[in-house]
């Protein structure tokens, strides 16, 4: 086994990160307080210099002391300046792979790659912050080969028919210009500029009002309907273009592809990122629609993985977030033949609607109590407090009605599918053998009304708890027994 150091550019990237973090302090201490002689500033300057020196030394030492190796089965990591540690991470523990090529990576023709395991904490991933393209390729291949070996069991009919050696990569989706226009519309990014423009416009208006007497003709020009309409149109066009560009930069070069065993998602124009996951490691699927997306018939499909998926903004497990609903569903079936999306979903029974409506409105009670107590201090109008209280109750009731309306579920032979939401809607689909545990709970109210809450847990980061309140107790029992029969499709090593 040959241990290697990480790429030397890692130091440069770490340094860049450090500089970015302390830049504000540095500017404050050395530029804004340039001539200052105060003790505080002087202490700050020395502390900053000492900190920078220490960081630089520790970065160098860290780089010299950490090494890695990758053999046929595992990553071996050595590290630590004072306390030596060694870690071995087997490839089969890798849940998903993320490749990120930021703009600065591109400058040096580098990339970064991280292998996420199902563990939590610092040891959850094996990360290479800066590697050459070839090395990243080599590491990914190693993990990939280890992953495919254990799929030898004839999984689905499709798999046993096709030849293993031939890896067919099918591209399922790349956004067209129309998709991007729709996407930029959905994200409402264009509104931002309109708001700014409007406030700017009113300011200008106010400014010219003052000088009306002198420059009356400017005002007459600015306030004339045509000019305003013209300026508004131009602004709207500009903001659309900006929205479009912003959307294009993040979602423009999207590609969703898959082969026999894996799913690949690549995105980004300036900062590129790529994500790949073994199909058998997909723990579940989430299809979510915000209110806006529902109006436009778009949906976001997310793959649930036991490995970490990164923070929200650079999360890459999402299949294109602005898919037409129908396409989203058909794509799931194309890519994951092991998953079935059922289109026939059951509503909750009438009585659960009644139960949900009459359940106490704690929030409303607290607000109303506060309003009643402070009614004389807060409002000049005597009737306002109970109007607010009643409208709040109405809104809460409407929300519950909408929530009931959007809730539906289906339990089929191997799958469970749950839809919930108030304005938006989220559908969660998982397989019986991927569920880690289930529960059926009944409060006293539910026992009286013959209802129950079902719950299930899936591996994810963080662990995913899915609940569906107020199904009939018969259905809950069916769900419980359904899960008890999971042995039907679970294979044991």
């Amino acid at each position, binding site marked *: 086994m040959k241990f290697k150091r990480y790429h030397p550019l890692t130091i440069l990237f770490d340094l860049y990160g450090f500089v970015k973090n302390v830049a504000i302090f540095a500017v404050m201490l050395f530029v804004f307080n340039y001539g200052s002689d105060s003790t505080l500033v002087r202490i700050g300057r020395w502390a900053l210099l000492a900190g920078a020196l220490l960081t630089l030394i520790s970065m160098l030492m860290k780089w010299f002391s950490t090494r890695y190796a990758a053999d046929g089965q595992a990553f071996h990591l050595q590290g630590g300046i004072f306390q030596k540690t060694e870690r071995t991470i087997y490839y089969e523990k890798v849940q998903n792979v993320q490749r990120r090529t930021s703009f600065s990576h591109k400058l040096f023709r580098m990339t970064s790659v991280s292998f996420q395991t199902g563990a939590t904490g610092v040891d959850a991933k094996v990360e290479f912050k800066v590697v050459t393209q070839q090395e990243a390729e080599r590491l990914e291949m190693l993990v990939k080969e280890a992953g495919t070996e254990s799929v030898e069991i004839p999984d689905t009919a499709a798999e046993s028919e096709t030849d293993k050696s031939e890896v067919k990569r099918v591209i399922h989706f790349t956004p067209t210009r129309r998709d991007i226009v729709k996407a930029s519309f959905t994200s409402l990014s264009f509104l931002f500029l309109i708001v700014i423009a409007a406030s700017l416009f009113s300011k200008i208006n106010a400014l010219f009002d003052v000088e009306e007497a002198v420059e009356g003709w400017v005002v007459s020009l600015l306030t004339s309907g045509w000019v305003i309409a013209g300026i508004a149109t131009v602004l709207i066009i500009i903001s659309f273009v900006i929205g479009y560009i912003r959307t294009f930069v993040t979602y423009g070069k999207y590609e969703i592809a898959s082969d026999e065993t894996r799913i690949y998602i690549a995105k980004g124009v300036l900062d590129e990122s790529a994500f790949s996951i073994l199909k058998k490691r997909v723990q579940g699927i989430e299809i979510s629609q915000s209110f806006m997306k529902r109006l436009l018939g778009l949906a976001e499909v997310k793959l649930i993985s036991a490995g970490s998926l990164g923070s929200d903004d650079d999360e890459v497990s999402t299949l294109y977030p602005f898919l037409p609903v129908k396409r989203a569903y058909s794509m799931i079936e194309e890519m994951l033949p092991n998953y079935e999306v059922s289109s026939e979903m059951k509503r909750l029974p009438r009585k659960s609607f009644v139960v949900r409506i009459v359940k106490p409105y704690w929030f409303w009670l607290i607000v109303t109590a506060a309003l009643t107590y402070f009614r004389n201090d807060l409002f000049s109008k005597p009737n306002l407090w109970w109007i607010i209280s009643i409208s709040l109750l109405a809104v809460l009731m409407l929300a519950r009605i909408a929530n009931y309306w959007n809730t539906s579920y289906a339990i089929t032979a191997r799958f469970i599918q749950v839809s919930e939401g108030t304005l938006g809607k989220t559908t969660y689909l998982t397989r019986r053998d991927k569920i*880690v545990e289930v529960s059926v*709970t009944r409060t006293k109210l539910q026992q009286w009304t013959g209802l129950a809450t079902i719950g299930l847990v899936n591996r994810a980061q963080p662990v995913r708890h899915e609940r569906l309140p107020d199904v009939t107790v018969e259905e809950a029992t069916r769900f*419980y027994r359904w899960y008890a029969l999971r042995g039907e499709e679970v*294979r044991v090593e």
Partner: protein
Amino acid sequence: MYAPIEEPSKRLSKEIIPAMRWGALISVAIEVVITGILYGVSIYFAWPDWVNWILLIVAAIIVAGAIWSIGLRPFFVFKNTRYEVSEEFLQLKSGAFHEVHELVPMAKIQAVSTHQGPILRRFNLYSIAIETMGSTHGIAGLPKQVAIDVRDRIAHLAKIQEVDE
């Protein structure tokens, strides 16, 4: 025809009732002592009236809590808790006011352990904690030999690994 979920067959040790009573008694005693001290201090330093009122309310809550946690809860817990360990599943049931059925596949269990605090030791009982990938489950009070058997059985059955598909 609807048939409710089959209850798991095994029960807790009956000794759990006095054990829980003792535990609850001790924590109520601590609460009473703290409230008492606060009341004494309040009287001594002549704190405003509303402090005493709050302490009185706290005292009432403690009394109500004591009736529940010493008098009633241990019996209900004993009466309503069931568990069962089969080849494939760990099955748990608890609660009457808030009834909970849980079903955990053996292969998804990560760790089992037995625990014994000073009170449980006095009654020669053990509690079991079962960790899965998602959460921790507990069985409150079992006689020593039963607890160790259950632990070992779960540990043995949990060794089985499922194949990802």
